[in-house]
């Protein structure tokens, strides 16, 4: 290859992917930065507030927060450390992983013990995420967090009462914004009025209660006298006094008092029923899982892998490729570790909700692209796969209020079922394969403008990899659909029921089948084609894969949010109509993304038809016969 050509292609190999990577990272970072910037002024005051508070209740000598973190509480179907409860509560209240940079445990305890009266009514911490809803109840904040006073003085209660009245007999038809407000109201009514003390289900049930209840864990109790009936009265009293002492010490900011009260409380609750207390190792495991946050860490590793792969490809540096693969493998190992821990701590089901399914997709994306790269000796697989996996995990991290990451129970039919372990990962893997094909197409499309016949070996390689990824995806989604059918026949009594999710899987499958046939038939063919099996023009093939990405987005997200169905992580939108859901705030990003992809498809096609060098003469029948 000439020096000139090498230089030209460097643009496509290096600059363009770099722009892509930078664009993706920049977009994610930029959105976060914009949101942060909006509330900076209000923030600084409260950051200081929490720093002061932390200094007042804890220091290294006492280690109060770390001790309190380990207190086991029962919350939402599971006994878990206070750390998890605090994180989940703060996330559902604020929509963010931490609030004002403070330790969630600190915020949680402060809300519980200091109560609303002590300045809490002025801290903006309660989220109403949509501007529409904020203006509807008369809160005029720029950012989504409001204070207790604001909510109390707003028209939330009366508005929700009206909504409830209107939809008394048809809750399934409530619109999405209304649903959010009703949910919000339920939270505020409970959390605000009671503080967080009502979440302190700290005392295990009596042995008799535990045995009487068939379920895994009986109800745990609050440390109050009525709740503790049936226990040894002496110990029960000790639980109450220890708890009261803890509260008093916290209010007095007495570090030593907090320490001793915590120890007493733990000892007393353990004494109530030692058998009911969770394993100490489980508790510390869960806390370390919370602290390590393996999925987020893995996402950064994927990004590193992607960037290393990019440079290895651009400058033909094989050593960098191995580093990229290593980073990817470490990231996958972290994800696997996270999953393993979740399975250990939870009820043993792996992929049951949107959160877990997205983590699974990122994992399989990385797996498939590494395998592809190892097989084909290339590195652009990791380049795109890493970016894809990173984006998925970053979305999870940033919008953690929309994706419930808590380890919890699942709906009846999912429990103790082998199919959930087979059907879901296979379908997720097929999505991942299609995602890789889509991202390769993003790199290939501009390149095809310069090199419509894909004479560059790199472009050819990209297309070949994309082709393989498509094949993998098509095979996997077919198997996934069939196994899903077997599962459905087992638990719903029908193999296929035209549920929107099923139908859209079929639509996705049909689309790629069409693309495969177009590839075979030689749609807009170039001489000889790129590969033996692909007579189709590289540009149009890439365009097809790009459109496939859009359909994938619809199958994966659009079906859940816009269409109603049976699949458990679907239906978050309730039964509101298709257009209602489409134009709703919550799905704005989706509509914009999908719409702009469509527009881009059309623009690129038109541009190609006008700008690209005239297509090579097709093989005439006479020539073919000869």
């Amino acid at each position: 290859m000439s020096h000139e050509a090498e230089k030209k292609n460097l643009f496509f190999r290096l600059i363009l992917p770099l722009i892509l990577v930078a664009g993706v990272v920049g977009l994610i970072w930029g959105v976060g930065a914009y949101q942060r910037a909006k509330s900076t002024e209000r923030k600084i005051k409260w950051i200081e507030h929490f720093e002061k508070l932390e200094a007042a209740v804890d220091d290294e000598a006492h280690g109060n927060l770390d001790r309190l973190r380990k207190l086991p509480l029962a919350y939402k179907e599971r006994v878990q450390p206070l750390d998890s409860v605090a994180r989940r509560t703060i996330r559902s209240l604020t929509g963010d992983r931490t609030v004002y940079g403070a330790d969630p445990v600190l915020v949680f305890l402060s809300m519980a013990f200091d109560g609303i009266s002590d300045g809490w009514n002025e801290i903006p911490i309660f989220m109403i995420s949509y501007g529409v809803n904020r203006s509807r109840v008369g809160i005029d904040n720029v950012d989504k967090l409001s204070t207790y006073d604001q909510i109390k003085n707003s028209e939330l209660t009366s508005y929700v009462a009206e909504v409830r009245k209107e939809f008394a007999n048809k809750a399934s038809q409530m619109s999405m914004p209304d649903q959010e407000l009703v949910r919000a109201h339920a939270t505020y009514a409970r959390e605000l009025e009671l503080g967080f003390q009502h979440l302190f289900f700290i005392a295990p049930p009596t042995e008799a209660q535990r045995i009487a209840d068939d379920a895994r864990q009986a109800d745990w109790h609050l440390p109050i006298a009525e709740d503790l009936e049936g226990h040894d009265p002496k110990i029960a009293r000790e639980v109450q006094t220890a708890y009261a002492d803890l509260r008093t010490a916290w209010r007095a900011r007495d570090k030593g008092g907090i320490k001793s009260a915590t120890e007493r409380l733990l000892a007393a609750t353990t004494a109530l029923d030692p058998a009911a207390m969770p394993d100490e190792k489980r508790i510390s495991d869960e806390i370390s899982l919370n602290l390590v946050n393996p999925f987020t860490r893995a996402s950064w590793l994927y990004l590193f892998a992607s960037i290393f792969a990019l440079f290895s490809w651009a400058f033909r540096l094989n050593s960098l490729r191995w580093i990229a693969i290593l980073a990817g493998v470490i990231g996958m190992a972290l994800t696997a570790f996270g999953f393993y821990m979740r399975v250990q701590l939870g009820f043993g089901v792996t992929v049951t909700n949107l959160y877990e399914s997205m983590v699974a997709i990122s994992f399989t994306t990385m797996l498939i692209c590494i395998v592809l790269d190892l097989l084909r000796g290339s590195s652009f697989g990791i380049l795109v796969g890493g970016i894809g996996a990173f984006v998925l995990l970053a979305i999870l991290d940033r919008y953690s209020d929309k994706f419930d990451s808590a380890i919890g129970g699942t709906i009846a039919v999912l429990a103790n079922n082998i199919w959930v372990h087979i059907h879901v990962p296979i379908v997720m893997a097929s999505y991942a394969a299609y995602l890789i094909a889509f991202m390769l197409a993003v790199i290939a499309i501009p390149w095809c403008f310069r090199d419509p016949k894909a004479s560059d070996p790199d472009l050819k390689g990209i297309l070949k990899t994309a082709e393989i990824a498509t094949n993998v995806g098509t095979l996997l989604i077919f198997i996934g659909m069939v196994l899903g059918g077997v599962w459905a026949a087992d638990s719903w009594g029908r193999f296929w029921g035209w549920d929107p999710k099923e139908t859209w899987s079929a639509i996705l499958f049909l689309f790629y089948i069409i693309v495969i046939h177009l590839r075979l038939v030689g749609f807009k063919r170039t001489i000889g084609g790129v590969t033996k099996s692909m007579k189709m023009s590289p540009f149009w093939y890439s365009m097809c894969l790009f459109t496939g990405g859009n359909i994938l987005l619809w199958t994966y997200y659009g079906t859940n949010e816009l269409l109603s169905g049976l699949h458990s992580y679907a239906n978050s939108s309730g039964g509101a109509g298709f257009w209602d859901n489409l134009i709703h705030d919550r799905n704005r990003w989706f509509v914009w993304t999908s719409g702009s992809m469509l527009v881009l498809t059309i623009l690129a096609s038109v541009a190609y038809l006008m700008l690209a060098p005239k297509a090579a003469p097709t093989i005439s029948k006479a020539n073919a016969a000869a």
Partner: protein
Amino acid sequence: MNQPSKRTKVKLRGGLLAPERKQMPTLFSLIIAWFTLTTAALVLVPYAIFRQTDSYFTDGNNVLFWSAICAISTAHGAMAFMLGYRKGGQISNFFWGALLMPLGLIVVSMLNNKRPDRDPQPARGWVKSLDRGTFAFGNLWWGIAQLFLMFAVLIRATVYESQVGGGTGNVAAYARFYNATWFGLIFVSFFITLFCATMRKYPFRISQIGWLCTHTGLLILVIGSLTRYWGMYTGFVRVMEGETVSSVDDRDVRELQVGIPALGYQKNFRVETDHDPVNSSEKQTIAFEAKKNGVSHEFEIELDRYYAKAAFFSELSGLPPADKPTAVAELKLQGKGGKPQIIRLHEQRQPGQDIMGLLKIQLLRATSAHHRDSLTWSYPPGSTQRGALVVKKDGDVLLRIPILPGPRGADPSQGARTDTKHVLEGGVFSIFVDRYFSQLSAREPGDFYDAAPGQAIAPGITFRIDGPNGSSENHSARSDGFWFNSDTNKPSDSQLDFVFEYQCRASNPLPASTIAVIVGPGDERHVAISDGRRQARLEPFKEGATYRFSKTSPFAIEAVACFANGTIREGVRETDLDTGFPAVRATVKYGAKKVKKWIPVGLIRSMPFQFDDTIITLKYEPRKRDLGFSISLLDFREFDYANSTKPAKYESNVILHDPAEQIEERILIDMNNPLGYKGYRFFNSRPLTSDRSKKRGIGFSVSRDPGYAILLLGSFITAIGLMTVFFFKPRLRRIESRRSAKKKTANTKSADQSGTPQPA
């Protein structure tokens, strides 16, 4: 209680291979037909096409080979049929039959010997057109066009489903798309295309194995889906603990149960207008004859409207003033706690209502102001009242004759007897009050009698007027305003224009705890509240006003509406509430008369349609299907997730009882472990609780899917094919080229030996 094992020893048989006894011959014949047709299609058609061309079948051995396969397939099908039919459809027998096929293949392959090739001949006539047709239908672009059509249709269908939304979206999408004929036709046409595309590839090469597998698998998938479409059954059955069921309700198919008790007629008709919740105006006409004593009666039922979600409604509406007005009123009763109760009263149909014996609500009409006043007086039955016979002219009272009922305890009818002479209008009239009735009742004027206690309407008198000219007229008057008390009524035969009125301050009693809406005279409206004292409170009727018996009374009655002339419109209308139920509107024609009514699903009693000489009853119910075996629910349990009320799983203990097979087995049905028997599968679907008996139960959803096995087979073959075509094609190509190279060298060698050139 000892726990039954999770998987029981009942032979779980299902699908196509274990159909119901009566269906068995048909189904096995179908299997034979399928095998024969497939073989014929795969062998004979290509043979016909390629017979005269240069193809695989120019080799006589190949023809022999495939003909043998064809024959063996047929024999195999026949064998399977016979064994299956004779021995009650056991799977093992079917497989014994199926074993013959590969066996036959091996035998035929071994017998196969070589014969020289024939020269190819050009195709002619119908073979040629068939060839062209196959070729055209198997066109890849045509296939892609169909795939694209399906792609677009499916997108539209899912969007449509969500646009309809609510609970009916899926059903609507089924009606409009998935169960529509044209949708099936796409599949059929897809099947033909696939088939032709496969034929086009004939004779097959090694490298096409993957391709062939994929497309054959898809062909089988299409066959499976069609079998499924025609043979699928879904139903629902509710069982309470301790109960036994032997039939199932269809989930989608409902029927009209028609009964004519007088003619001894009973028949069920399938309702076809109720599959699409969006289209409510499909029509269906059911005509039938019922015969009795040699006389045939012709009936016609027209269903012209269907609501997937309907609700009853009943509302008042006013009518223009009429000669014989009918008053209607609507009140809202609010007891202590609970939901308010709407009470609608109709002067003729339901003038009064009794609320649990505590409270009476009535609608009365007053013909005059005096009548209205007298309505509000309480009048203990059996007591006697002082009154007066008033003679009026032009509204002026001319005369007032007191009527004393006599001493207490005496016969009241005797006490009133008076005989007085009066000068009126210059003549002397003798007015003789004949009888007094403390509780007078009458069918018509003059036909008075003393009513039995409880039937009393009002006190009254009968009297005679003897005129100066010797005329004599008998009359009667009732204190509630009937006969002679109104300003307009006059003695009919008399030349006199006097008006007689019997005024008595005792009248139609309003029992204690009664609220009466009194309409009249004219458009006046009042509410009378009787709390058991002598006189009821009379208040003007004001819409929106609340009336109570006393300040402490638990009942509050709100006046909603009242029309002096109006009607209560009742019926069924479409609703979007979750509580809506399906309903059809039926018009029954018999003779010259038509009756139109709404029939909702799940009525306890049938809906009667009244005709002059007969009654037709209609009931709109899910179609029942007899299972041939029965299931009794021993007990049902529900497990929740810890610390929550989210159900984790349901378990039902049932006894399966089949007298025909002499099976009686105890089985545990839980999530993901449904009961499968004779092709039916039972799933725990919804827990039930009965309010009355406090019993628990479970709703099972029942399904039967004969296409399931075919679908699985097709999917398996397709998946294998996809894998081969995507990942092993290069390898197959290499094998193929190696073989053809070998063959070539062999051919060249033989050509060299024989010395005759071979065509390229």
